[in-house]
């Protein structure tokens, strides 16, 4: 680019034009809805933001399908993450309408913080399962077999601060076993990823995750132990963005269709009424 050439003289204008184009493109993409894909809804719908533990995804997907097929006025915008990640995000002020945790204690923390409205309800319970890749590289044939060879096998669990990690620790304490975890992942989803990719011989995940990845993994039951399940709890935000729609969806979640969705996704029923208190 020689000084004095046309490009040189116009370079400021060109740069400015490019910048304007970028900004315009950015704004346009940010504003455009996906209305090219979905048919225009007959009734105006309200979007409810649900922050949910990653293990809940299969159940929420069913709820979402149900809402769509009925042409309901409420639509789901669900975002998944490890329960403790979600809790810390909520603490730093993340806006949401409904939160679903994979543990009772995390929900109790949120209630104590005043981040959610007082009434939290248990939706379902989930159990821990031993999951191995479909080709079973560790040649594991039962939970006991796994424990016997745990030291030589590569194993993934959740970190202890995550509900599935808490449950794995309880299991080790109650059953008096040691799983020799090679990696402690930040959510049950990343444990499943490591198992599905065949990077580990075994992983500890929820029964529902194992069922959702049916053809890619093999599942072994874990012997019964005290406190062998974790509870799925839901609550409406203390200051929801869409109060009415949020409450509508919450009623649906704790009601019959919510229960069906969780059951179909392989969850166990919520604890009996007398046990379903946060205290």
């Amino acid at each position: 680019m020689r000084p004095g050439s046309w490009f040189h003289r116009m370079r400021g204008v060109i740069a400015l034009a490019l910048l304007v184009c970028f900004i315009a493109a950015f704004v346009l993409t940010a504003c455009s809805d996906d209305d090219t894909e979905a048919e225009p809804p007959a009734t105006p719908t309200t979007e409810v933001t649900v922050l949910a533990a990653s293990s809940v995804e299969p159940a929420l997907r069913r709820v979402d399908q149900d809402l769509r097929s009925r042409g309901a006025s409420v639509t789901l915008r669900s975002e998944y993450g490890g329960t403790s990640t979600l809790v810390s995000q909520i603490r730093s002020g993340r806006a949401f309408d409904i939160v679903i945790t994979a543990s009772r204690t995390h929900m109790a923390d949120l209630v104590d913080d005043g981040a959610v409205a007082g009434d939290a309800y248990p939706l379902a319970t989930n159990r821990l399962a031993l999951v191995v890749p479909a080709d079973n590289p560790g040649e594991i044939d039962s939970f006991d077999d796994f424990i016997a060879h745990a030291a030589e096998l590569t194993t993934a669990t959740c970190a202890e601060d995550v509900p599935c990690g808490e449950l794995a620790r309880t299991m080790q304490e109650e059953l008096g076993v040691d799983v020799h975890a090679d990696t402690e992942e930040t959510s049950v989803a990343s444990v499943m990823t490591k198992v599905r990719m065949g990077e580990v011989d075994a992983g500890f995940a929820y029964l529902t995750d194992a069922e959702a990845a049916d053809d890619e993994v093999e599942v072994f039951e874990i012997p019964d132990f005290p406190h062998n399940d974790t509870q799925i709890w839901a609550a409406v935000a203390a200051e929801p963005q869409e109060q009415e729609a949020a409450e509508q969806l919450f009623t649906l979640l704790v009601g019959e269709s919510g229960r069906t969705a969780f059951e179909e996704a392989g969850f166990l029923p919520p604890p009996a009424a007398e046990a379903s208190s946060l205290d």
Partner: protein
Amino acid sequence: MVRRTSALPGLLWLPAVVGAVLLTLPVLSLLVEADLPAVPELLASPTTREALLLSVQTATAATGLCLVCGIPLGVLMARGRARLLPWVRPLVLLPLVLPPVVAGVALLAAFGRMGLVGQPLHALGVQITFTSLAVVLAQAFVAMPFMVLSVESAVASLDREYEEAAATMGAGPLATLWWVVLPLVRPGLLAGTVLCFARCLGEFGATLAFAGSAAGTTRTAPVEVYLLQQSDPQAAAALAVVMIAVALIVVGLVYGPGRRLFSVRR
């Protein structure tokens, strides 16, 4: 010499100040928010110390790897005449712009148990994932381009006369490189090493995806910060302060008033 500072348009200040605030405010806020007097106490926890120690060890090893392989790469890119080199350069520098998680996934594809190299290795009983070696590889993968770039630009800007003079005095190619070129590019080498080390210390995404997170083996300081953030934000902030301090020293040395140390003395 004519002073030209007065020719700067005043208009520069507004966006410049916005940019400077955007870049400095978050770190300053963290320093304000963190309970500074409690930092030593929070750092006394064995898990935090373990993570810091592991970070220093792996970053040192990875920086060593970057020196051993990065310097030859940089010299070849600057002086090499092989036809392939211009094509190799962007590939070698790719990790600079790659999202770290993508780097982790790519490393898994190569060295994971099902990976291209990892599978035969695993058959021989060698596993890389979930070991400290995986952390070192992840760090070297993202940091080596810094070394290559530093060395390449330093060597490229070197006057060839020195090398030619050395050659006419009978020095072989290796002697010329060792006694003439490398001492002359020492500032670039030092800067590259420091940047490399800092990048290794900060590596997070690739480590988490490729090496996992196990206390003492693969849980480096940044991974620990991420985990602590969820359970104990105060401790996370304390550890973050330490990492900021290290980073400050590094950028201070390479880009700040301290950069004179790194400039060529003639």
